């Protein structure tokens, strides 16, 4: 038979990761996620990075782990000949958007370029645009900043195809260009692994950020 206090202690002890903390009296509280009534606010990691870049500063955590769906690459795509590295010149590419307009990175110097890896049917992307941090945010391209979405999904994979992307861009309120990279060459070159995954290229053409939108996948703040 356990007393109520024993059960509480037990529950707390269990919540402290692994065994070490469990062998002594609980020194702190509230680490049982299930008991947290209100989560901490999300950290706008990407937004902070962008502001730093626009202020000519280096972002913190410039190369961090993103979350999301895997990029739906073709299985037989060749390995990239060049791999992007944070702090180095961003590899050039040229892709077309859904209206057939070409975007060549090397012709965009002087602007801060945001690359958002994108799959309009990925639940993380849907959340980000419908309820999350990209709601309305991605429309703010201006003279200094150009925001480009890149879909590296192979034909037949989730979220792929021009017509589908046109339709879903409207549904999600995506007004920035959506570039199709069906071969996955650009995605692999940049090391894009998830959707959404954010990249920032500064006005000198240097890749200065690669990582997550925030620390809250589907709105749930990670501990």
């Amino acid at each position, binding site marked *: 038979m356990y007393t109520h206090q024993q059960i509480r202690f037990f529950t707390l002890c269990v919540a402290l990761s692994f*065994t070490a903390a469990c062998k002594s009296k609980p020194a702190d509280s509230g680490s049982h996620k299930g008991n947290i009534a209100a989560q901490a606010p999300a950290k706008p990691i990407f937004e902070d990075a962008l502001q730093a870049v626009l202020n000519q500063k280096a972002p913190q955590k410039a190369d961090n782990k993103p979350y999301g769906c895997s990029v739906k690459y073709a299985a037989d795509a060749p390995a990239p000949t060049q791999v992007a590295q944070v702090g180095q010149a961003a590899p050039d590419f040229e892709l077309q958007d859904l209206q057939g307009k070409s975007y060549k990175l090397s012709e965009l110097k002087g602007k801060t370029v945001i690359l958002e890896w994108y799959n309009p049917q990925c639940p993380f992307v849907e959340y980000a645009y419908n309820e999350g941090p990209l709601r309305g945010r991605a429309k703010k391209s201006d003279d200094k900043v150009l925001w480009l979405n890149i879909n590296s999904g192979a034909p037949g994979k989730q979220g792929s195809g021009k017509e589908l992307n046109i339709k879903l861009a409207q549904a999600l309120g995506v007004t920035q260009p959506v570039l199709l990279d069906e071969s996955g060459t650009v995605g692999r070159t940049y090391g894009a*692994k998830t959707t959404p995954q954010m990249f920032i290229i500064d006005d000198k053409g240097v890749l200065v950020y690669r990582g997550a939108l925030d620390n809250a996948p589907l709105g749930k703040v990670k501990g």
Partner: protein
Amino acid sequence: MYALSQPHAGHGRHLLFGLLLLSACGRKPSASPSKRALGPKVGASASESATKGSAHVAVKLAALDSDQDGRWDQLAIEWTIKAGWHIYWINPGDSGIATKVRMQGASEALFAPARLPAPEHWTSPGGIVGYGYSGQTVFFSQLLDPSRPPNRVDLKLRWLVCKDSCLRGSKTLQWTAPDKAEQWTAQSKRAWARLPKTSSALRAEHHWRARQPSGSTLEIRAQEGEFVEFFPLENDAGLQSAELDGATLSLHYRSPHELGEKKQAQGIVGLRVSSAVEYYPVEFAWP
């Protein structure tokens, strides 16, 4: 992310590994669940008040007795995942999101957090590593006071299930618990057998050493057996690579001053002794 195995313990085996996150706090489960079931199977039932995205995932609950004392002490959450699809471990890897189990209402105080068998791993095109489960798996949640089993269990499950596409799913269950323990299924036995031991049960020496030009390496040497696979926990610790070489596991991290606060253990390791593979948390103080 790193999903490391020696060649002879490679992907094809798709081993399930137990993640016994918290076992040191609880009653020790018996070494084997392969005992006979106690009593006849009792028809428990569950109602689902809210379900979405369940076309690829089925969930069934069972009340199991892990220590043969005649009382059920484990809530088994049995997952059946549609062929070709997978759900995710607590560290999903490069993509995905952890499968969540959350007791609700009065049940919250009655059960320990779910223990997830550690995952299979896979690598998708583009070198995207994932950790999770396919086919069938079982999570376990320990009933804290088996002498007072609840009549009803409330819980909510959330998952992301992926194949070529990813779908969110969730299910809220109100489950009428049986009076007696139910039969252990083959899948429950398999999952249980692969739950890691306690971290202190890992008989190994370890030390940290600095790397040049920067970084730290945690080197772990087993007193017996050989390491066959390592699953890192998602701890923001900057794991750069891991090497398994027989009885030695080497985990290479970024420079400590770059790491920030590290809250978790390093991961889960599989150790083969004789023909059996056992799993242990790797949990050593950070430098």
